[in-house]
């Protein structure tokens, strides 16, 4: 009886370690696999050239990834600027000032939006956002734009990230102990002041992790962005110009992979770039979250 239990323990213990190691090795395996496929690129161009050049001429064998990297960063930043203030303010309102009823309605709304397939966001973007930009927004600044632009990508991405951010932010704000808020109020602070000094301060790490979540999602989102961003190989100078983020590059040109020499290596390299950027970002965010958690306690 005891032997059987110990055997069970050993076998399952071994299996558990095996699975954990496999999972943890996954990013390494994926990274190595992509690296191997991207290797042929380096015979013709140095890493510096690949990352810094803006010349994209695959049939001549020249691959400059700079426009794609910058487009990715630009559109993510735009979506961030649109989403963050709205999300934080809304989350504050929903958890602090509004009735409990409102939050209950919000939950299914958030769930539905998080579950909507991204092609649908793309279609919605084409139907509503693109004409909005070309007919109403751009003329305000005296610019002609087709509407397929960084701005469109940023807006669509913002709408896609908002459900996730809101979810985390609501959870985070809710878990601030009510006692602290009440202590602050009893000391004579106004409602908003309590919110500002107590709730937000205590939730720094949570807010940061919601940011990390949103950025990772925005950087990696493929289909919706591809449909509205204009897919033009250039470094966009204004948000009304088109751009070409990394995931769109991979999805659009998947078909040419085997037809042009080294194109498959180039696309795998793009995937590798995405992987590395996101891993690095995660590191940075984790570090700040860790720091702010230390401050909290």
């Amino acid at each position: 009886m005891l032997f059987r239990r110990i055997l069970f323990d050993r076998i399952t213990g071994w299996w558990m370690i095996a699975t954990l190691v496999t999972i943890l090795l996954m990013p390494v395996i994926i990274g190595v696999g992509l690296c191997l496929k991207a290797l042929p690129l380096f015979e013709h161009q140095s890493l510096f050239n690949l990352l810094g050049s803006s010349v994209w001429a695959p049939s001549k064998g020249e691959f400059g990834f700079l426009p794609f990297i910058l487009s990715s960063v630009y559109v993510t930043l735009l979506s961030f600027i649109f989403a963050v203030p709205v999300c934080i303010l809304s989350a504050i309102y929903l958890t602090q000032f509004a009735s409990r009823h409102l939050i209950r309605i919000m939950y299914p709304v958030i769930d539905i939006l998080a579950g909507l397939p991204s092609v649908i966001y793309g279609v919605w973007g084409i139907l509503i956002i693109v004409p909005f930009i070309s007919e109403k927004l751009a003329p305000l600044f005296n610019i002609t734009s087709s509407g397929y632009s960084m701005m469109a990508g940023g807006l669509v991405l913002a709408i896609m990230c908002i459900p996730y951010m809101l979810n985390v932010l609501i959870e985070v704000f809710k878990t601030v102990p009510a006692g602290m808020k009440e202590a602050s109020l009893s000391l004579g602070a106004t409602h908003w002041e309590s919110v500002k000094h107590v709730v937000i301060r205590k939730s720094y790490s949570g807010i940061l992790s919601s940011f990390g979540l949103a950025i990772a999602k925005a950087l990696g989102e493929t289909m919706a962005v591809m449909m509205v961003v204009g897919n033009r190989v250039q470094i966009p100078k204004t948000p009304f110009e088109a751009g070409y983020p990394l995931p769109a590059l991979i999805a659009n040109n998947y078909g040419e992979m085997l037809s042009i020499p080294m194109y498959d290596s180039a696309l795998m390299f793009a995937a590798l770039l995405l992987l590395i950027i996101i891993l690095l970002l995660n590191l940075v965010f984790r570090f700040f979250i860790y720091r702010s958690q230390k401050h909290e306690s």
Partner: protein
Amino acid sequence: MNRRKQIEEIVFKLLSGLAAYSLIFILGFIILIIFIKGFNALSLDMIIKPPKGGYYYGGEGGVLNAIVGSLYIAIGATLIAVVIGMPAALYINVHLIKQKRTQNTIRYLLDALWGIPSIVYGAFGFTLMLYLGMNASLLAGIITVALLITPILVRTFDEVLTTIPKGLHEASFALGSTKAETAYRVMMKQGFSGFITAVLLAFGRGIGDAASVLFTAGYTDLIPVNLNEPAATLPLAIFFQLSSPIPEVRERAYAAAVILTIIILIVSLTARLLSAKYSKSNLK
């Protein structure tokens, strides 16, 4: 001083209220449009029939192929994720309970994994497929999606497990259980509804993702009967319907989107209900 505070208070209350309500308005607007367009094109035929020839060109039939294909892939991938992910999450919380630093490192790596875009998994899955000589099939799709959702399962389950008080571990060990028994008999029982939540979340992600199946699962008008056949998926069905020159077919894409959304809604509502149940009756 008081005046300023009062103004600040009013301003921010207004601002945040404005933000919240306009957000609700916009989000509700999106859902409304999709549902209205979708229900217009939705018919019983769409759910129960696979497409007849030339469906994307105006023919008859429905998207049963995609519904079944998506379910197959999501269920298969979730099974793999459970088999691989559940033991891993339990291990972190039971065997490593004393090693906080290791735990934190592992959690960081898991977070990083969660952030990897699905297109990277798709690209990797495609490379793997070629390397193994597979053709675009149900199996390739299942493997790629499994890669995508396992981190989600592990991380969510792990979050749940961390809320179980350490006292339970110690009591279990004190009573003479082995580590495995603590993990599977005690922790699982305690965290069971949290486990179900994690499974449902992973499932929801697996069924709705397009980029990972775009290169790997292929597409077909038929319902796959074995692992080696290509499988249609709802996101791709939507995509191909949108690519048709015929406007009626494009309208049908919204109906497919509504079907997908309803499936995901059912899944996430169940997950929310279960997690609410879980947080109330913590220690039985």
